[in-house]
C-alpha cells in the first residue's frame, strides 16, 4: 500500500498533538489518585461541585464503589444531566440494593433516565424487574420499548421469554428488531440453564415470525440442534 506510510505518519502526528493536550489533565486512568469512597461521596455532595466534578467522582465510584454510595448516587438516577453517569457508577456494583434503586427509577422516570435504568437492569439480569419491563414493551416511546425488549432478553428467564414472545407479532420497526434480539438472548439464556425445550420453542417462534430471513435460518438450526441434544 503506497499511501500506508503517509497515513500512519499523519495519524501519528495527529495523535501526538491530541495526546499532548490530553496529558495536561491531572486525572487519568493510570495516574489518578486512589480516592476512597467517602471522599467521592463528599465530592458529590459539595454545593459548589461542577458537573465535571460530579462526573469524575461517579466515574471513579464505578471502580471502587459499593452499596454505601447509593444514598448519594440513587437520587441522581433521575437527573437529566447526571443519570447516565450515576448508572455508570453503580451498574457494576454487586449489591442488590442497586437493583432496587434502578427499579424505582423505572416506576417513576421517563425519557432517557428511564431508558438507561431499563438498560442497566438488563445488564444486571435483575429477574425482579421482569413485570415492570414487560409492561414497557408496548410503551409509546420507542426507545423505552426497545430497551425493555433487549433487557428482558438479557434477563432471559421463562417470564421474560413469554413477554417477548407475546410482543413479537405486535411490534414494528426498530422495536420489532429489538424483540428479535431479545428472543435470541432469552433463548441462549434458557439453553445455558439446560431448559432446552423452552429455548427451542423461542427459536421456533423466531424461525416462524422473525422479519429477517437470516435469523429464521439460524433460529431453525438452533431449535433443531437443541431438540437433538435433549
Amino acid at each position, binding site marked *: 500500500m503506497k499511501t500506508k506510510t503517509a497515513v500512519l505518519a499523519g495519524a501519528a502526528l495527529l495523535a501526538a498533538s*491530541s495526546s499532548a493536550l*490530553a496529558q495536561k489533565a491531572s486525572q487519568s486512568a*493510570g495516574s489518578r489518585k486512589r480516592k476512597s469512597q467517602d471522599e467521592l461521596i463528599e465530592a458529590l455532595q459539595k454545593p459548589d461541585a461542577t458537573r465535571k466534578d460530579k462526573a469524575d467522582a461517579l466515574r471513579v465510584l*464505578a471502580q471502587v464503589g459499593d452499596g454505601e454510595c447509593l444514598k448519594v448516587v440513587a437520587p441522581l438516577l433521575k437527573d437529566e444531566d447526571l443519570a447516565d453517569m450515576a448508572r455508570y457508577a453503580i451498574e457494576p456494583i454487586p449489591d442488590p440494593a442497586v437493583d432496587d434503586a434502578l427499579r424505582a427509577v423505572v416506576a417513576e422516570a421517563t425519557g*432517557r433516565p428511564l431508558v438507561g435504568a431499563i438498560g442497566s437492569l438488563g445488564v444486571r439480569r435483575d429477574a425482579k424487574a421482569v413485570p415492570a419491563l414487560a409492561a414497557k414493551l408496548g410503551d409509546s416511546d420507542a426507545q423505552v420499548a426497545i430497551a425493555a425488549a433487549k433487557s428482558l432478553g438479557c434477563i432471559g428467564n421463562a417470564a421474560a421469554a413469554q413477554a417477548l414472545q407475546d410482543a413479537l407479532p405486535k411490534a414494528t420497526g426498530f422495536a420489532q428488531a429489538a424483540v428479535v434480539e431479545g428472543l435470541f438472548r432469552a433463548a441462549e439464556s434458557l439453553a445455558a440453564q439446560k431448559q432446552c425445550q423452552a429455548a427451542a420453542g423461542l427459536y421456533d417462534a423466531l424461525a416462524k415470525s422473525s*422479519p429477517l*430471513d437470516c435469523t429464521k435460518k439460524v433460529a431453525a438450526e438452533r431449535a433443531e440442534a437443541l431438540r437433538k441434544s435433549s
Partner: protein
Amino acid sequence: MTGPVSNAEGRAETGQTRRDCLKTAALAGAAFAVPTIVPASALGRDGTVAPSEKIVMAGIGLGPRGQYVLDWMSPEKDVRFVAIADVQKSRRDEVKAKIDKHNGDQDCKTYADFEEMLATRPDIDAVLIATGDRWHSQAAIRAMRLGKDVYSEKPSSMTVAEGRAVVETAKRYGRVYQTGTQRLSEGPFRQIIELSRQGKLGKIHTVRAHIAPWDSADLSYAWLPEEPLPPKDELNWDAWLGGCPWRPFNSSYTKGGWRGHYDFHTSCIGEWGAHTFAQGQAGIDALDTSAVEYGYVKNVSGDGMVTTFASGVKMILQREGWRGSCGMTFEGTEGSASCADGYEKPDVSSPALAAEGERLLAEYVEKTGKPMNHVRDFFNCVKSRQETVANPEVMHRTMSTVHAANVCMWLRRDVQFDPVREEFVGDAEANRFLTRAQRAPWII
C-alpha cells in the same frame, strides 16, 4: 425511526431479493428486445460485473482512515458504494463527492443517522465502519442486527463485553464480519505467521508485538474546553458521543483528538496491538483465546510488558525494534522471523527460512483460498458466506488481550485473565473494567 426493518434482507414486496428483481428486469428487457436496449455492462458480458451481482456497500463514519479503505475497496469490480452516513455534514459531503466521482454519477445518498440508512435501504448488503474506536462495535452490532455484513476498522471493541457482543451478534444474524487487521492478509506477515505455526522456527517461546510508539496507556479523563455547539445538521454531538459519557463539545475531538481519552480510545496498546496481537496470536495458534498473565511495567506505555499464554508462550509488548510500523517477531528454539510495514521480505535467522516462508505462503493461499488482500477476503466471504480471516472471534480474542493489558497498566499491578470465563481471576477490582455502562439511548 421509520425504517421497514422487515425489508432489511433485501426482499421487495413480492418476496424477491434485490438481485432477483434486477435479473428479472434484465430478462424482461431481453424478451422485449425492441425497443428496450440493455447495455452489455448491465448483464456483465463485457468483463464488468452485472449490477445484480455487485456487493452494494455503504460507509459509516469515514474520516481519513475510512476514506483510505474506501479507496481500496471501490476499485473492486464487484463492489459499488451507494451511501454514506456520518454525524458530520462536512464528512458526508466529502465522501459523497469521492464516491460519486468514482461511480461517475451523483447517486450516492447521504445520511446523518446510519440506522435510518440501514433500515430504509434494503439494497445495501454490507457496510464499511471507520468511526473512532468508541463506535466500532456499537455500529457493527446495530448493522448486523439489520441484516448487513460488516467490515470494521480496528480497534474493534472498547471492552471485553463489547467484543463478546459482536461475536454473538454475528452468530445470531448469520453475518459476515471482518476486522481491519489487514496484515493478516499481507504476504510478508503471513510468511512469518506460517513459519511460526508450522514449527519451522522450532518451539516458539517468545513473540514480540509492536505497540504504538506515541501516546500512552495512561488515558485521560479530562474534558477539553467547551466550544459553541455547532448546528445539529452540521455535527450531531450527541450522536458523535453515542454510548460514551457526556462531555461538552470541543472540535478537537472530531478531528482525531479523541485519541488519548479513556472514553474514546484503547490506548497505545490498542492502537497497534489490535494488529500485532492478532498477528502474534495467529502465529501461535491462539486466535481462540487470550493471554492469561500480564506483568505490570513501571512506565506509561506498557513497553516491555510480558503477557503469557496458557501454552507458556510469552508475548512481549515493545515500542521499538523494527524498521516500520506494526512489527512482530517470533522467536523459537531453532530460529526467528520478524516483519513490519515496509519489509519487502521478512527478516529471518537463516536463508533457508526465507525460501521456506515463500513456499509456506504459496501453500497457505492454495489450501485456504485466502487472497493476500484483506478487503478482497471480505468480499469473497460476503459472497461465499465463509469465515473471514479476521472474523469476530479473532477480533474479540485479540482485543481481549489488549483490554487486559490496559487494565494491568491502569491498576498498576499484575493481573490474570481467564479466557474461558472471560473475566479476571479472583479480581473484583479488575472485573469492574470488563464493561462500561452505556449512555442512553445507545445501549446495545
